[in-house]
């Protein structure tokens, strides 16, 4: 691991260690959430007939909750790698915009930078984007620990769920709703945070309209193209009220 950023006015403690102490409290809610959803994911895979190795490795390598759930039925369906690629691309397309938001923050942390980008899930992005990091704490190490801790919680939960799922004797029917609930939860929280709801409503309305027009098997690509087109054409309507004093750099 590189320690290229040892610029701190270093007291006795290593900057990595101090950053870990600052980062850990930020990840505690995610510890609880990822453990629950991770376990649910492991149990779901177990109930679908897979060894715990599957949720363990998939959570480690993919590290994108929703798409990992969606991969389970794909592994049970006829082989269709292009479909798997496209669904992951479409469902994770939002990461493109997280990337845009993190361009400045994630750059210049040496070997940590590629890992920060690789592990940029919704939650790690949210913390690293919003956290007020004290000036004497190394930002690179802070970002790194948040990303790594969240990654570990998720892999840990999925592995435990995959292992203990075999011990479960209760009926797991309906457990897969946890994925829907996760998005309802995120959507609700976003809704409460935003000043205007045009974008949220457009997402729901366009999706529903396309779903009715094309049906559940075909509607994905038309929906995303329509969302892009509506935002491109309706720029003046959707442009958020200038609220952030942060980006004065341009």
């Amino acid at each position, binding site marked *: 691991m590189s320690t290229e950023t040892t610029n701190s006015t270093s007291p006795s403690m290593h900057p990595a260690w101090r950053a870990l102490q600052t980062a850990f409290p930020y990840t505690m809610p995610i510890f609880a959430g990822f453990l629950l959803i991770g376990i649910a994911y492991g149990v779901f895979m177990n109930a679908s007939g897979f060894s715990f190795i599957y949720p363990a490795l998939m959570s480690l390598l*993919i590290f*994108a909750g929703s798409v990992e759930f969606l991969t389970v039925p794909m592994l049970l369906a006829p082989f269709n*790698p292009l479909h798997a690629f496209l669904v992951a691309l479409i469902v994770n397309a939002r990461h493109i915009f997280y990337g*845009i938001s*993190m361009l400045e923050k994630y750059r210049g942390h040496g070997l940590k930078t590629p890992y920060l980008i690789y592990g940029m899930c919704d939650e790690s992005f949210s913390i690293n984007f919003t956290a007020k990091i004290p000036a004497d704490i190394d930002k690179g190490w802070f970002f790194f620990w948040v990303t790594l801790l969240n990654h570990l919680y998720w892999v840990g939960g999925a592995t435990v769920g995959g292992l203990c799922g075999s011990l479960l004797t209760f009926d797991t*029917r*309906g457990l897969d709703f946890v994925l829907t609930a996760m998005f*309802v939860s995120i959507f609700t929280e*976003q809704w409460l945070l935003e000043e205007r709801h045009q974008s949220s409503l457009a997402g729901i309305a366009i999706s529903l309209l396309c779903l009715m027009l094309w049906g559940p098997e075909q509607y994905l690509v038309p929906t995303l193209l329509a969302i892009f087109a509506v935002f491109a054409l309706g720029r003046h309507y959707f442009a958020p009220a200038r609220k952030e004093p942060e980006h004065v750099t341009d």
Partner: protein
Amino acid sequence: MSLTEQIITVLMVVAATSLTRFLSFALFPTPEHTPNFVRYLGKVLPAAVFGFLVVYCLRGVELTGGSHGLPEAAAVAVTAFIQARTHQMLLAIGGGTALYMLLVQLVFR
């Protein structure tokens, strides 16, 4: 599906996920390279995407047959309610999922 096919499927998902995460950094190597239109999209798209994902999860629900989407509607409402009241994602997800499991296992069979 053979083990090799499973590995390829998972690797395709890994590749697509990584592509979405690395793309912006590859396209816009410095802030000066980021067009204003892209910044605008970065601000307005996330909210729409979460709405899109809620619909995506519920796309298979049959309104005309089965349980007419009633368990889903109830569980979505309860999840949103708990989230709005407590802001505890864990509680909201756990509560909504527990209700849904109860409904599909005991009420709408």
